[in-house]
């Protein structure tokens, strides 16, 4: 391999297999947005502080701005596009609409992924659990209360269905 050259990685994104030629230190965030055109994942701070770039990597919540492309090799990744779209929304997304959990929307994909990840680990969270799970996701619009309401509402709905 020439110095600083590209490497080949294979990963699954939202269920689709991809083989990509990438710089190993490229950010997973740029890979998703620029190479795969999955622009639902947002960039806020670019330094791990805001959670706008949150995705699930092998089921774990990560900040895609801090994950180098090489560490996506062999990984199974879920972005907001894999959670739900306009034709079919996830219960968490529906709850954000009903409870007013989104305003400008830039934090919303990350918030939804952090919430979905929480509900996978703990289907019946307290408000304190929700606050802890979303602590790494910043929002400049809502003041958070409606976001926490949305997540709690989503799990009530999910429970009512099961």
């Amino acid at each position, binding site marked *: 391999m020439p110095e*600083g050259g590209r490497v080949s990685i294979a990963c699954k994104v939202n269920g689709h297999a991809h083989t990509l030629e990438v710089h190993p230190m*490229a950010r997973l965030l740029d890979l998703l947005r620029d190479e795969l055109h999955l622009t639902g994942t947002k960039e806020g701070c670019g330094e791990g502080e805001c*959670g706008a770039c949150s995705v699930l990597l092998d089921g774990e919540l990560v900040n895609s*701005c801090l994950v*180098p492309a*090489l560490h996506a090799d062999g990984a199974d990744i879920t972005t907001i596009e894999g959670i739900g779209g306009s034709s079919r929304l996830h219960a968490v997304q529906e709850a954000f609409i009903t409870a007013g959990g989104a305003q400008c929307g830039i934090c919303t994909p990350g918030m939804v992924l952090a919430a979905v990840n929480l509900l996978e680990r703990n289907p019946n969270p307290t408000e304190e659990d929700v606050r802890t*799970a979303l*602590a790494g996701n910043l929002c400049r619009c809502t003041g958070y209360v409606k976001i926490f309401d949305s997540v709690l509402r989503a799990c009530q709905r999910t429970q009512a269905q099961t």
Partner: protein
Amino acid sequence: MRAYLPAYELKAPRDLGEALALLAREPGLWKPFAGGTDLMVLFAAGKLEHKKFLSLWQLKELKGIEVTPEAVTLGALTTYTEVLSHPVLASEFPLLGQAARETGGVATQNRGTLAGNIANASPAADSPPALLVYDAELELVSARGSRWVPYDAFHTGYKQMKLCPDELIRRLRLPRSSRPRQHYYRKVGTRKAQAISKVVFAGVAEVEGDTIRDLRLALGSVAPTVLRCRKTEDVLRGKSVEPATVALARTTLAEEISPIDDFRSTARYRRQISQNLLEDFLLSLQ
């Protein structure tokens, strides 16, 4: 300025032997890269000194938590999330879990590693004070062999440590204790989540009747390195918690630490808070 990508290399050796061979061949040239939660932040800011990075993330030899009757041994890549889900760590080394819980958010806890926190060598790091009061030891490996060093002697100055350019941290060992201990941890920052410490305090004590039979204290953000406060421990060992003892401990601690003014806090605030946390710890002992 954003870093220029083609200038950087990140290599993923298949096993520890291959990683150590690369480090031995070109020591100092290759920088270990674990979860990347410190390095990628520097990368984004164009502040990385190195151009060549050695990914450790895939190395199985650096993973896993092992429990024996004598000790709990944690792989270098142990993440905060793994610390939080381990029952023996939760019951016997609760301060490590408390530090993990207050380190960043879930996403940071999923990728950030203990060895990364240690080797990043920030005096404000949150897990080192907990590791210090639990008498942690580190295993350092290179192609030349392996050695165990007490963590207490690892940091030698601001961002300086006893880690040769061809060495990696492989494991951390926490000796288990059969005696009942009382544990205390407080991180003081600007807000509860995602804030870097102004002061972080960890204390462990064994109390018999009224007497502090033994104790260990360690603080972060009050000196060029995280600091085990042995002089303060010495004035407290064998004593009972009386006002005169507390007062002496407070003055001893104020002399033992050397906090500075920086963008996060002031020396005066840090000294005051350190003393207050010490007193709070002592008064909490039963």
